[in-house]
């Protein structure tokens, strides 16, 4: 059962091959067996999952089921879930039982999915390896000595290990796409504004987006359908009609114009990965697409700009974590100053503190123009590069990450080394464009992912492009031996 995709499971439920309760038990059982080692889950919500499954079965029996009714999923612990711990991977929120549901959670609940629990992540979504979590690192099921990627490491690992057929992730600089690539699964970061951020604990407000992570584009389409759409509670939510993402999955790709930015294939890219990407692009040629070299000349500035904007916004977003109204409070604070300094000093991990400090510095008096304002200008340049490219091509492809999953500790000594693993993904967040990662092969035993970047609100096209590839290849069907 656990090898099946969401689409297959939905069909099985409809055909009464099994019930949602049986499905849920099966996955919970896998979680019990495999999670202690993988550490993908922070919280498992067995009781409520079984109750939800019961409800789903009743809906199925009444003939009132939707495409996701009764399907087990799991939520990245960045989403507020009512009555359930929502920790964001941090000691700061270890005791935070959210009093409300995020919009994304509400929508999945309304769609009738069964939440198995909350997934591990880099603390406050800051990281590319899931090594900064208060709850310990997550392991990559393909090689448990390697990282699953981050910050949605728990989500990627759980899906890859078949602990759950689909999971939510969030992506601020690559946190859905890079772990999807490291774990050999399919992940999509939507256009900024497509999915509501209400109840999604904020890291960098102008970059964060929630998205689906599953094994196939077809599954991502089903999940995105439930997640996407206007939410009046989020001022940055876009009010426009949501297309039927599943309806256009099978459209032929004749005439599709693919752009390959030369900046994505420069030095620093592992040669094996480069080879696999080119092979994948060849598949697209066979499907009728044309390929063109393009240039995104300001790409090299995306890292520096991102590492100003994201820390600046997060330094402000995390100021509310002060031990006053909720969350971690230090023991016996002597005075107000002590309350703040020690609650925050003890509650946050080192990477979060580094980013808060950099962000605070970048916004401080005398530095705003040189850093924050400058970064916003570079953001404009990068967006214009993409705009220009999309005048000549429909989608842009390239490697998701310059390397495959690295070993634990390999990049933790130097923050910059860790930051460089995001070099292909960051620009997409700065521009607010949608991007996917799909598995396109293996380097040794580790998965390699290819990134597909679309124009604004072109998720339907992205999913179609990804799906057609998955119809003629089977990388997405491979399973790690566990």
């Amino acid at each position, binding site marked *: 059962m656990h090898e099946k995709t969401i689409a297959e499971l939905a069909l099985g439920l409809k055909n009464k091959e099994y019930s949602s309760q049986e499905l849920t038990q099966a996955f919970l059982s896998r979680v019990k067996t495999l999670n202690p080692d993988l550490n993908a889950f922070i919280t498992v919500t067995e009781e409520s999952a079984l109750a939800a499954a019961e409800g789903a079965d009743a809906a199925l029996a009444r003939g009132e089921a939707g495409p996701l009714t009764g399907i087990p999923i799991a939520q990245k612990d960045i989403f507020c879930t009512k009555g359930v711990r929502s920790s964001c991977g941090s000691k700061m*929120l270890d005791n935070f039982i959210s009093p409300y549901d995020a919009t994304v959670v509400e929508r999945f609940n309304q769609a009738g999915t069964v939440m198995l629990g909350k997934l591990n992540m880099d603390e406050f979504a800051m990281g590319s390896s899931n090594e900064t979590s208060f709850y310990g690192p997550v392991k990559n099921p393909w090689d448990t000595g390697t990282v699953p990627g981050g910050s949605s490491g728990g989500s990627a690992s759980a899906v890859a290990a078949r602990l759950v057929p689909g999971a939510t992730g969030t992506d601020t600089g690559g946190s859905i796409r890079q772990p999807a690539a490291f774990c050999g699964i399919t992940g999509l970061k939507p256009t900024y504004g497509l999915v509501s951020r209400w*109840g999604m604990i904020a890291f960098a407000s102008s970059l964060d987006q929630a998205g689906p992570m599953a094994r196939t584009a077809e599954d991502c389409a089903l999940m995105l359908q439930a997640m996407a759409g206007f939410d009046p509670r989020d001022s940055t939510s876009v009010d426009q009609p949501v297309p039927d993402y599943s309806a256009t999955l099978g459209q032929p790709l004749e005439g599709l114009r693919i752009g390959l930015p030369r900046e994505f294939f420069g030095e620093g890219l592992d040669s094996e990965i480069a080879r696999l990407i080119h092979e994948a692009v060849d598949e697209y040629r066979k499907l009728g697409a044309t390929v063109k070299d393009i240039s995104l000349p300001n790409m090299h500035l995306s890292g520096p700009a991102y590492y100003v904007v994201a820390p600046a916004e997060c330094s402000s977003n995390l100021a509310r974590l002060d031990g006053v109204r909720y969350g971690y409070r230090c023991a016996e604070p002597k005075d107000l100053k002590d309350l703040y300094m020690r609650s925050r000093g003890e509650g946050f991990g080192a990477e979060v503190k580094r980013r808060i400090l950099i962000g605070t510095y970048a916004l401080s008096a005398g530095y705003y123009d040189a850093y924050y304002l400058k970064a916003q200008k570079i953001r404009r340049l990068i967006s214009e590069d993409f705009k220009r490219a999309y005048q000549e091509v429909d989608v842009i492809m390239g490697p998701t990450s310059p390397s495959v999953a690295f070993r634990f500790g390999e990049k933790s000594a130097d923050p910059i080394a860790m930051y460089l693993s995001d070099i292909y993904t960051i620009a997409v967040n700065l521009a607010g464009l949608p991007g996917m990662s799909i598995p396109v092969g293996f380097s040794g035993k580790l998965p390699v992912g290819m990134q597909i970047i679309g124009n604004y609100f072109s998720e339907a096209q992205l999913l179609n492009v990804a799906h057609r590839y998955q119809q003629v290849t089977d990388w997405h069907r491979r399973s790690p031996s566990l």
Partner: protein
Amino acid sequence: MQWETVIGLEIHAQLATKSKIFSGASTAYGAEPNTQACAIDLGLPGVLPVLNQEAVRMAVKFGLAIGATVTPRSVFARKNYFYPDLPKGYQISQYDLPVVGNGQTTISVDGEEKVVGITRAHLEEDAGKSLHEDFHGFSGIDLNRAGTPLLEIVSEPDMRSAKEAVAYMKKLHALVRYLEICDGNMQEGSFRCDANVSVRPKGQEKFGTRAEIKNLNSFRFVEKAINYEVERQIEILESGGQVIQETRLYDSVKDETRSMRSKEEANDYRYFPDPDLLPLEIGPDFIEHVRKDLPELPDVKRDRFKSKYGLNDYDAEVLTATRELATYFEAVVKAAGCDAKLCANWVMGDLAAALNKAGLEIEQSPVQPDRLAGLVQRIADDTISGKIAKQVFEALWESGETADAIIEHQGLKQITDTGAIEAIIDEIIAANPDQVAGYKSGKDKLFGFFVGQAMKATGGKANPAQLNDLLKKKLQ
């Protein structure tokens, strides 16, 4: 050394919206602590702000009333600092691009008019409250107020005396109430003032170092605080010292300003545009809509009262102090159809006194305009004298009856029948021969005795003017 005082005021007016500026929690005053602080107001993880349309309308109303430009595209910025009554660790405010730009207002001090410039007005959210009464070494934080919309109005440093500052503050206080954007209740903190005060040698162009006096919540305190501060600064400068740029609090008990202990270093607020909010765009349609809704402004109304009703400066000023009073007055005049001045006297005099005594506002007056008008008409047409009218007014206040009904019931009609008055005079003259003799022999003061007797005999209802004439004739 001659010193010149320079004052700029920053006024925070709480906008009278039903819900908060960025959340749907209530703004009603006086609720139990933290019962009106929703998830957004508490700054829970994952919450997001959405802007209240009415707060924007109110800001635009204000902008139009002071003749300012309404910024077509304004931006919300985060002002970052840590304080327990600031749940998010930042206040959503406006920095570079405020919603209202340059405007002005005119004040009047000792009969002289002066224009005071207003630099800008912007929208922001209020913080919560800290209660320092001992919770055994702790302070208690109430976040009901957090998120209430504020309009921060910044004046140019145009004022040159505490009196001017108070006049400006009163002007704006009346204006925001006129516009119905703020209830102006200073006790409840709806209207707060910070004063920036500095001095410089007369004739010097450069401004002196200023101190900011925070949270002055009465006109009296503003005046006293500024006066104290000016003295303090002059003393420092005259003894060769320097004024420190700092924030001070006014102690009304000791009548002095004190430096705020916690403000050792200037705060670095690290303003940046709030990424959870998009730029606020206000187009000409929106502005026109608001403009149509603007009431007649106080200055315009005051001038109109002077020309239309022939009132003097003072009366016009008093009657237009609030929109409610002005409306009441005009309703009385309309219903009475006569003598605006007489109406004005009654509204400003007996009615105001009665309302004051009972602690009522004009909106709560038990005497409605048409009933008061009825009284005025009967004075104007000589049915009753001014003196009797006071009696009638008391009855108007106590009962729901009309003036006519009261006059009827109590038989208060003035006696204007010459014959009747003469008859009474004759009786009095007949009954008081000594006084008649006394008066005729030159004791003029005795005239009052006869008036008194006649009034007594007529129960006060003799028309005074006629009585006087007839008495004089008969006592010749």
